[in-house]
């Protein structure tokens, strides 16, 4: 399909009216079913609402922690973000008028709440100016939103990406390998997932997940027949031929390499989970899921026996309160302190600026969700989880309603990667699964994570615009 902007809504209504023989085309004036302005106005309203909440959160942090309002900081942290997202909104009016109106406000709200909580921890730790993570987070938000803006302006048709399927494969491979390279690779808290160039450091794995989603979508669309049609039936399921196992084995090997060389369980689980789900959606074969889960469990089991850090993670998860684990180097101290923080928050939280989140190590990044849980309570965490669910629901909607398989696969891939990342990190903090180091999308301090997630926002907006611009009613 060619560029969709040309296809306007009147066309969609025409399609309906001509298809229904009962109605006469000229009986009464046609009612426009899709009005892009309405979508964008709804988005603007929601955006302003999100920005007001974000600004209020910064004010509440100041009142709670310092008892006074510093308007300079409110302007920097609250208004700065607002200007950027409204700029994005204006751009959408021109380049993607039919884009989903909820995605941008949800991302804005999560990003803003994250900045407020990061700022709160800066206050507790006495960090100001360029030392303060919150100001760097605002700058990174700006960078991320501008990159997202560029993506949506220059990528007018997502199917262009399909052409570069194997380019994205190479990109994701390079991004994954970068941290292992001597010289620019850096090890932080035992995980070798960073690269440093001068004063800047970056987690290329975050961007790699997008490249991987594009590569998987393009690859699976072209190879789905051979992966789904042939094979041997066993136990009521059609299992693939041995030679078709190649791709999943490659991805599995890559994930295991991440576990072994980069010491990053969470990222490995994220990539592999992403691939298995996209493979399942593309081929409709449950056997892939079973093979995938089997492979990963086998790998994780071996890793937990062979690799000390994986073994520790499992021990910490199962018995965090055991003094042996609690006092150990790399033990469950962080996990337990996070649980104490969450418990301190209780049902309604201590209030912004009134808890002690910075007792927990990495309170601004990996443990931002525990920090928010302490100050906003169970009620606040429920709202945050619901925001993620809403975001995910909008993404899945694109997949359900899309017409081209590449777009549908890409949509589900990008959405699932956000959902899985939420599950891995929040589940790790709340002891559903062993704790692994990942960032909470949009909330956590960290530039790479912000840039990656805002690119996902841009891609989902582009996909949703395409879907809605198509001559169909069911959206």
């Amino acid at each position, binding site marked *: 399909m060619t560029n969709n902007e040309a296809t306007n809504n009147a066309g969609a209504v025409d399609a309906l009216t001509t298809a229904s023989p009962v109605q006469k085309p000229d009986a009464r004036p046609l009612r426009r079913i899709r009005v892009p302005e309405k979508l964008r106005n709804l988005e603007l309203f929601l955006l302003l609402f999100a920005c007001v909440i974000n600004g209020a959160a910064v004010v509440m942090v100041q009142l709670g922690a310092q008892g006074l309002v510093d308007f300079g900081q409110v302007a920097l942290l609250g208004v700065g973000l607002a200007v950027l997202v409204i700029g994005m909104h204006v751009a959408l009016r021109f380049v993607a008028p039919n884009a989903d109106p909820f995605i941008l406000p949800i991302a804005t709200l999560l990003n803003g709440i994250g900045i407020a909580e990061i700022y709160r921890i800066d206050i507790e730790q006495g960090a100001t100016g360029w030392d303060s993570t919150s100001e760097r987070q605002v700058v990174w938000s700006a960078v991320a939103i501008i990159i997202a803006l560029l993506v949506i302006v220059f990528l007018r048709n997502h199917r262009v990406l399909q052409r570069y399927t194997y380019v994205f494969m190479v990109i994701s491979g390079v991004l994954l390998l970068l941290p292992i390279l001597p010289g620019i690779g850096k090890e932080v808290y035992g995980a070798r997932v960073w690269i440093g160039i001068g004063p800047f450091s970056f987690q290329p794995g975050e961007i790699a997940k997008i490249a991987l989603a594009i590569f998987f979508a393009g690859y699976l669309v072209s190879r789905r027949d051979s992966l789904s049609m042939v094979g041997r039936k066993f136990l009521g399921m059609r299992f693939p031929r041995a030679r078709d196992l190649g791709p999943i084995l490659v991805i599995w090997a890559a994930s295991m390499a991440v576990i072994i060389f980069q010491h990053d369980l969470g990222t490995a689980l994220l990539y592999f989970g992403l691939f298995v789900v996209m493979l399942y*959606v593309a081929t409709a074969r449950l056997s892939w899921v079973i093979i995938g889960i089997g492979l990963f469990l086998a790998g994780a089991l071996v890793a937990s026996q062979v690799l000390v850090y994986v073994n520790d993670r499992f021990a910490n998860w199962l018995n965090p309160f055991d003094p042996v684990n609690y006092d150990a180097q790399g033990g469950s101290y962080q996990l337990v302190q996070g649980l104490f923080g969450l418990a301190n928050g209780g049902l309604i939280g201590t209030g912004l600026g009134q808890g002690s989140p910075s007792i927990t190590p990495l309170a601004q990044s990996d443990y931002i969700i525990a920090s928010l849980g302490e100050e906003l309570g169970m009620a606040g965490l429920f709202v945050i989880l619901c925001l*993620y669910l809403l975001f995910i629901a909008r993404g899945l909607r694109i997949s359900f309603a899309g017409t081209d398989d590449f777009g*549908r696969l890409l949509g589900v891939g990008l959405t699932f990667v956000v959902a899985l990342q939420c599950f891995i990190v929040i589940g790790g903090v709340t002891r*559903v699964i062993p704790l692994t180091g990942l960032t909470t999308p949009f909330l956590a301090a960290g530039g790479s994570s912000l840039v990656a997630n805002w690119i996902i926002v841009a891609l989902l907006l582009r996909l949703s615009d395409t879907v809605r611009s198509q001559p169909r009613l069911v959206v």
Partner: protein
Amino acid sequence: MNRELKRVTIVILAMFAALFLSVTTIQFFSADALANDSRNARTIYASYSKQRGPILVAGQPIAQSVPSDDQYKYQRTYPNGPLYSSVTGYYTLDQGSTGIEAALNDELAGTSGSQFLSQLNSIVTGQNPQGASVELTIDPKIQQAAYDALGDQQGAVIAVEPKTGRILAMVSKPDYDPNTLAVHDTDEVIKTYNALNTDPAEPLINRTLDGNLDPPGSTFKIVTSSAALQNARLPGDTQLPNLSGYQLPGSDHVVSNAGGGTCGPGDTVSIETAFVLSCNIPMAELGVMMGQKNLTDMANAYGYNSSFDSPIPVEASQFPPLKDDPAQLALSSFGQANVRSSPMQIVEQSMAVANGGVIMQPNLVDTISAPDLTVLQQFQAKTLSTPITSITASTLSSWMVEAVNSGAATNARIDGVSVAGKTGTAENGTGDPYTLWFTGFAPADNPQVAVAVVVQNGGKLGQSGSGNTVAAPIAKKVLEAVLNK
């Protein structure tokens, strides 16, 4: 593809359901258990973020929380730390607390049941929550006099109003500065605590109430005489053999009177004379004569073997069962063998004599007031026990006055005032320094104050000091401080 997407959606919903469930479990169901974990520093921060109520003496704080600029928001300070250390106790970050700080922690922290409504109110109105203030019965002048009188001796002084049980002074030495344990640096607190705790002089013990209790020596003769007069119904002039050495029944151990010799002239001696001159032999004879039941019953009636809250918990003084051993009975009759007493127990003996036989429960707390000054709890005098009748009390009172006037307690004499008193010089073991006691009250005809003084470690005089030479002068200064008020 839609069927697969639906299944993926269900998987995502299941993942989020797990997150909702885990968040609810942690923040709702196990929140209390997590808050009570000893490793949870947030619980301590929370207790410090509330302004803890002050402890007041005559309206002046002896413990108060002032704003601090660290994460704890408030710093506990003790303006007159060492002077009141045995009353306030200490309050540390995470190493526990003692004294009033511990005994009335709920009220000071504002978490007691009676403060629930006012706490709720302060949450709604957004005021800083505050604990209740505790006004004590301590009189600062008497406390200071007792503190000065005890000087650098190791021991304790307690002064109580016999008619009400209000504790006017409570001093234990060596003392410590509770400010040093209130600092917000746990490592430093632990270091200071360990230094105090391993100090052989045991400054952290409140000697008025607990710790290694001492044998009461002759101060126990109040109990023995009470048992004779009341339980055995012996008149005060009952004559006992006046010996210069008394071989314990069933033993080759010989007891002598303090200073040797007989108890005054004559072949026999009355209970009264034995009490006034504080002779051991007649008392031992008296105990054996009336039997163990009479003595044990009277000791228990005076409060031995039972404890109460002042509200700081008072350790039970010990009068162990005698098991038909006449030697033990004889020794116990003059406060040796296994009898052990706290100064609180000894002052109760004087209180019974001073107050017509009734011991009013000693109490430190006058009023507990909410931050808005409404009174949550007001001191009310209540009877602890009535070991003796008023007749027995007045007989013993006259004997104690006689002991001060012309007997074994002459160093407590105050011109123009009739003082009642009883000394004690207790042995701790062969060669060990004595424990020196004095207890009494004044004025004898209208008692304003009852006092007990203990000086441990022989008052630095080994075995050459006595209750009359060391403890009685200390008590005299405390009595004077009350009477000159």
